[in-house]
C-alpha cells in the first residue's frame, strides 16, 4: 500500500498524485447513485423506482434487486402514511406475475398499496394488467424524459435508514445518507452528499461521490476500511485509537483529515459563518 511515514495526522491520506490508489477514483469519476431501488415521495403517493435493467446485468439481477428492495422497505424510513398508494416505476425491468406479487406483498407488509405500474416492457405491462393493477406502458424513449433525473447539482432529499449495513450490502443515494446503525466491514455507503453514521463505521464510505469535495463523513466511532470524499481516498491507520469519540472526516488541501466532532464544529463551522 502507500507509505504514510510523512503523514502526521491520525489517518493516512492519498491524493491524486499517488498512483497506487488514485486509479480507484479515476475508474469511476462520477459514481452513479441512481442505480439502486429508490423510494420517493411524489405528492400524495410514493414512487418505488427500480433501476433500469442495464444497470444490473446478469442472472443474479432479481435476487439483488429483491435484497435492495427489502432493505429499503424495512430500513425504518417512515415518511409515509399507512395505506399510501404506491406507483411502481419498473422501467425496463422484466417482471412476471410472481415477481409483481412478491413486490406487492412486500409493500403490504408495511401497509403500502401497490396501485399502478409504469413500465416500458410489454410483458411486464401484460403481467401487471392481468394481476389487476392499472398500467401505464411508456415508450422507452419517453421514459427517459420522465425519469426522475434531478439536475446534477441538486441533491435528492436525504435518505434515512435504520439498519446495519452488512457485508456485501451497498447503499447508494444521490443525496445525503443518514444511517442509524453500524456500517460493517465489507459494506459500502455511497452518497452524493454527506454521510452520517450513527454507529460504528467499519466499512467503506464515499461522500460527495459526484465530485463535491466539501462533503463530510461523520461517525460515532470511526474505524473505516476506507474513506472517500469526492476523488480523495484515505485508509485508516493500522492501530485503533485508544479512546472512542465521534469524528468528522473532511477534505483538507493535503487530503482527507479527521478531527474530533466536538472540535470540528469550533474550528470549521464557526470560522466559516
Amino acid at each position, binding site marked *: 500500500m502507500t507509505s504514510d511515514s510523512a503523514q502526521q495526522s491520525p489517518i493516512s491520506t492519498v491524493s491524486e498524485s499517488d498512483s497506487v490508489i488514485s486509479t480507484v477514483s479515476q475508474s469511476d469519476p462520477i459514481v452513479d447513485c441512481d442505480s439502486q431501488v429508490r423510494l420517493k415521495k411524489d405528492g400524495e403517493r410514493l414512487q418505488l423506482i427500480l433501476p433500469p435493467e442495464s444497470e444490473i446485468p446478469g442472472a443474479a439481477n432479481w435476487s439483488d434487486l429483491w435484497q435492495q428492495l*427489502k432493505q429499503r422497505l424495512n430500513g425504518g424510513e417512515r415518511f409515509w402514511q399507512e395505506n399510501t398508494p404506491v406507483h411502481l416505476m419498473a422501467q425496463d425491468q422484466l417482471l412476471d406475475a410472481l415477481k409483481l406479487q412478491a413486490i406487492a406483498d412486500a409493500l403490504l407488509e408495511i401497509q403500502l398499496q401497490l396501485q399502478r405500474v409504469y413500465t416500458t416492457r410489454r410483458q411486464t405491462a401484460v403481467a401487471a394488467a392481468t394481476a389487476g393493477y392499472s398500467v401505464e406502458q411508456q415508450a422507452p424513449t419517453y421514459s427517459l424524459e420522465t425519469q426522475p433525473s434531478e439536475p446534477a447539482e441538486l441533491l435528492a432529499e436525504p435518505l434515512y435508514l435504520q439498519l446495519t449495513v452488512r*457485508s456485501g450490502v451497498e447503499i447508494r443515494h444521490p443525496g445525503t445518507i443518514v444511517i442509524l446503525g453500524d456500517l460493517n466491514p465489507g459494506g459500502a455507503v455511497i452518497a452524493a452528499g454527506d454521510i452520517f453514521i450513527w454507529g460504528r463505521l467499519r466499512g467503506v464510505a464515499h461522500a460527495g461521490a459526484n465530485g463535491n469535495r466539501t462533503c463530510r463523513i461523520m461517525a460515532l466511532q470511526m474505524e473505516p476500511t476506507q474513506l472517500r470524499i469526492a476523488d480523495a481516498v484515505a485508509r485508516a491507520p493500522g492501530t485503533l485509537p485508544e479512546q472512542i469519540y465521534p469524528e468528522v472526516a473532511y477534505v483538507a488541501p493535503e487530503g482527507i483529515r479527521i478531527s474530533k466532532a466536538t472540535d470540528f464544529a469550533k474550528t470549521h463551522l464557526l470560522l466559516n459563518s
Partner: protein
Amino acid sequence: MSRIIVITSGKGGVGKTTVTSNLGMALARCGRQVALVDADFGLRNLDLLLGLENRVVYTALDVLAGQCRLEQALVKDKRQEGVVLLPAAQNRMKEAVTPAQMKKLLGVLAQKYEYILVDCPAGIEMGFQNAIAAASEALIVTTPEIAAVRDADRVVGLLEAQGIKKIHLIINRLKPAMVQADQMMSVQDVQEILAIPLIGVIPDDERVIISSNRGEPLVLAEQVSLPGIAMNNIARRLEGEKIPFLDLMAEHDSLLNRIRRLFRG
C-alpha cells in the same frame, strides 16, 4: 407448529454439520420428533457425522423424482429415538433441486416432525437458496475469525432480505486461552459486528473431531464434555428454557492474566 430451522454460515468448515447433528440428537433427547435434512447436495456429510452412512438407501432426490416414498428415504437413528435423517444425493449437483421443491419436501416433513433442522451448504449460491427457501428460523454458525464473521454478516443480510427474522448466533471453536491473551476475537467482538442474539458458545475441543470421525455425536457420549454440554444448552434454549451461558473464561482467569489485563487497561 413445527419449526423449520436452517443452520448456515456462509463460510465452509466452521461446524454447521457438527452443530446440526448434535442439536438434532439433543432435541430428540428432550423428547422431540426431529428430522435432519442434508441440503448439501453433491457434498453430503451429515450422514457421516451421524454414523448413518451405511444405512442410506434413497435420497431426497429419489423422493422428488417419485422413485420412492418419503418415509422410505428417511433413515431412523437406532441410538436415539425420535431422530430421522433425510440424506442428500451425492451424485448430483446443487442445481438438481429448486427452492420450490425443497419447500414442498419440508412442508410434508413439517406435518410429522416438531423440529426440522436443515444443514445448509457453504456459500450463498443455489444450494443456500434451496436450504433457506422453507426456513422460518436460522442459526448462524461462526468461528471467531474475521473471514468467518465477515461471511456470516453477509449471510445475515441475505436472510433478512428473505424475510427470515428469527436469527440466532452460535460461536463455535472458541479458544478461551487465546481470547484471554488477546489473540482471538472474543464473543463480544463477534456480537458487536453481527448484532444478532447469541444462543450458544462452543469451546474448541479435540473430542469434537474424534466424535465426528466415529460418527457418534458428542451429546450421546456417556462422558459429558464441555462442547457436549454447550450443544445441549443450545437445544434447551431453542426449547425456550433460560439457561445461563457457560463460563468458558473461568478456567483461564488466573491471577497472572488478571494482572496482564489490568496493565493493558
